[in-house]
């Protein structure tokens, strides 16, 4: 319920005369049991109609470990999970979202992947579907025509090739489908559809608030970040549009929080103007304005205090790595001094808790980099001792360390991921050095990250593994209490697929990558250059300090990036 893309597309589709869109979410296993026992199909929430009553079933793919849920939801609705087994136009299965940066592991199950932003392209697809339905086309004719719509990837029209050693060598289209599927974007966000009145749940969900999307894309180019590379080019909304949309949504929903969302909201140029336009309106109504996270080098006490007029929220910074050397490698251009300055300002103004986000397993990482995480945590506590206006209240520094997963479409798409053993070893080391007064250390078992790493850079041979694992009972794999690694291992063995081949292997620049026919706007040359700079320990400037010519500008067709 918290996903912004779903709110936008749900509102947009229902604003179209001929379209009726409902929501459906994967049921928890206890509900699944009841549905299966009662022979009830998985149903849509608005009407209670089974999913099999719908023409098109659309999935948003936000996380690799939700892939088995896609199969399970189709099956619960009585719809064949394999695309080839679904005949005719009924039950067309489409999917979009950030995991389409590499859709190959789901190629056997999805009829059409929509690459990029869905506002325009999905309506073009629906139009075509209406024509096809009216004129009684067969499925193949429809799919071949759909492949001609920019941003529509029809996996059934592409054949992958492997060499004698089983390495992927390329993919060839048929039926006139394009060799490269170029991501779709909305050029002018001020003119784009934005929902006035999203569905407000009556039971608590996460991120239950007005989400005001201030821009798309990110100027930073952190080398590990998939969204930062695949959501380009940078486009801002005007403060006028945002103020109008924020007030309308708050009035219509009754939410008491407006979140200014984007990949890096402190980089939004007219943030002051936007806050000025909203803050008094909000304060009168006990509505708080929130920034999901802030850059330590852009932290402003004045801004933070204005935002907390209604409610004081915690501070979160993401240094991502423990040493300047490694931060240069990953291009997270934040200096330790920036962080200490930001924390000092915050502590002096009454804050007493800070959350710090890191990753371990980054390319070129050494124990010294992990020591740096502990050193910074100590440093922040020291800053608190020197700057706090109220020492008696104490301080809480939380350091969360996630496992780095190399993602397609980033400069690190060629990098080997640390093995589970390496990551566990590093975690044990971290547990030792993070026993620090006033510091909490959070970590997560690397096994889920490992599986994520396999699917993130997988090819079509993983379709069989996903199918097999689902048949064995795997679902909700991203949930620790549901993940059945034993069943996954059986599935990989039964299909003769090696997890390490996908997760832990370094790729050379000469190698063909299974997802390179999906073009998100950033050129291979740019990603390679950024990868080389990473290994030379060289940071790159942000897009505003100097355009690196990543290629995303081309998507604007004569427009200008980041105006």
């Amino acid at each position: 319920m918290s996903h912004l893309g779903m709110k936008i597309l749900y509102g947009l589709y229902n604003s179209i005369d001929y379209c009726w869109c409902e929501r459906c979410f994967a049921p928890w296993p206890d509900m699944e049991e009841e549905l299966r026992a009662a022979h009830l199909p998985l149903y849509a929430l608005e009407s209670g109609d089974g999913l099999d009553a719908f023409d098109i079933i659309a999935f948003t793919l936000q996380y690799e470990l939700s892939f088995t849920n896609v199969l399970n939801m189709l099956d619960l609705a009585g719809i064949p999970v394999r695309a080839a087994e679904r005949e005719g136009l009924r039950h067309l299965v489409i999917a979009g979202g950030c995991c389409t940066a590499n859709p190959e592991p789901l190629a056997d199950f999805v009829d059409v992947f929509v690459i990029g932003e869905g506002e325009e392209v999905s309506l073009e697809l629906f139009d075509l579907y209406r024509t096809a339905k009216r004129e009684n086309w067969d499925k193949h004719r429809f799919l071949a025509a759909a492949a001609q719509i920019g941003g529509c990837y029809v996996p059934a029209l592409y054949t992958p090739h492997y060499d004698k050693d089983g390495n992927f060598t390329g993919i060839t289209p048929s039926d006139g489908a394009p060799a490269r599927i170029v991501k779709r974007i909305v050029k002018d966000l001020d003119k784009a559809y934005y929902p006035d009145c999203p569905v407000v749940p009556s039971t608590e969900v996460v991120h239950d608030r007005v989400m005001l999307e201030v821009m798309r894309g990110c100027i930073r180019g952190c080398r590990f970040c998939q969204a930062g590379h695949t959501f380009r080019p940078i486009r801002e909304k005007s403060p006028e549009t945002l103020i109008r949309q924020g007030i309308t949504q708050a009035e219509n929903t009754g939410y008491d929080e407006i979140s200014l969302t984007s990949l890096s909201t402190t980089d939004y140029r007219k943030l002051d103007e936007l806050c000025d336009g909203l803050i008094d309106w909000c304060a009168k109504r006990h509505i708080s304005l929130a920034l999901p996270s802030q850059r330590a080098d852009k932290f402003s006490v004045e801004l933070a205090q204005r935002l907390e007029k209604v409610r004081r929220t915690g501070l979160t910074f993401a240094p991502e790595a423990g040493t300047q050397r490694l931060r240069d490698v990953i291009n997270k251009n934040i200096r330790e001094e920036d962080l200490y300055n930001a924390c000092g300002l915050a502590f002096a103004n009454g804050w007493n808790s800070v959350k710090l986000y890191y990753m371990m397993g980054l390319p070129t990482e050494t124990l010294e980099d992990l020591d740096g995480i502990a050193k910074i945590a100590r440093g922040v506590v020291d800053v608190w001792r020197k700057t706090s206006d109220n020492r008696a209240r104490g301080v809480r520094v939380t350091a969360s360390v996630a496992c780095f997963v190399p993602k397609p479409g980033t400069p690190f798409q060629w990098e080997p991921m640390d093995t589970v053993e390496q990551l566990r070893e590093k975690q044990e080391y971290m547990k030792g050095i993070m026993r620090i007064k006033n510091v909490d250390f959070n970590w997560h078992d690397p096994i889920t990250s490992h599986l994520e790493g396999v699917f993130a850079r997988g090819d079509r041979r993983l379709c069989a593994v996903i199918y097999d694992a689902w048949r064995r009972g795997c679902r909700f794999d991203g949930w620790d209490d549901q993940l059945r690694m034993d069943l996954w291992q059986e599935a990989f063995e039964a299909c003769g697929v090696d997890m390490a081949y996908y997760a832990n292997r370094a790729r050379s620049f000469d190698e063909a990558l299974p997802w390179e026919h999906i073009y998100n706007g950033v050129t291979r040359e740019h990603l390679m250059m950024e990868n080389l700079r990473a290994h030379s320990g060289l940071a790159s400037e942000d897009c505003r300090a100097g355009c690196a010519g990543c290629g995303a500008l081309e998507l604007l067709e004569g427009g200008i990036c980041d105006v």
Partner: protein
Amino acid sequence: MSELRLLFEKRGTARYISHLDLMQVFRRAFARADVPLGFSKGFHPHPAITILLPLSTGFESVCELLDFELDAPRLPDNFLYKLNRALPAGICVTGVSESHTPARLIRYAAYEIYTEMDVTPEALTELFSRDALVITKRTKRGESETNILPLLRGFRAEPQGDGILIRVKVAAGNESLNPEYVIAAIEKYCGVTASYTSYLRREVFTEDLQVFR
């Protein structure tokens, strides 16, 4: 700022909205209806909304009471229409009045319990005319053996459809009894298991069984 009391129904799928979520549902409905609420003072101000007698999740009710502070000289025109339009299906406000009687005066709540089990209404009437019905009651301090009869008033059972409709008043407020223990007692003493049970709160009463408002 005046304190006002709503009388509302919670029926249908709205029965699955929990007590805490219901407060949020009302807070948002007031905001959508543009009715300004009073807020508590302090570091984390929260809207002054109190639900007088929390209802178990899954129960329906036609007699829920909610107190709120209005941060305006008077209620807007068409207040009930505006608020009901902003509330989710199943929740319907049927009245608004000054809040003058304190919640602690609530002593009983009348329930209609519809249940399907292999037992006759006559057997139930006989069961509830005994001297004592002792069941194991879970409390915050652990389990205790409790005679539930002193906590009940006016037990009646009659056939309805495929099952039995029980009307009973149970203690509510300070020393209370969840009506699920009525079914638990029947299951224990009659050696049966209910295949289906639903609960509807009909009315709330004071000590002398006057309707509480």
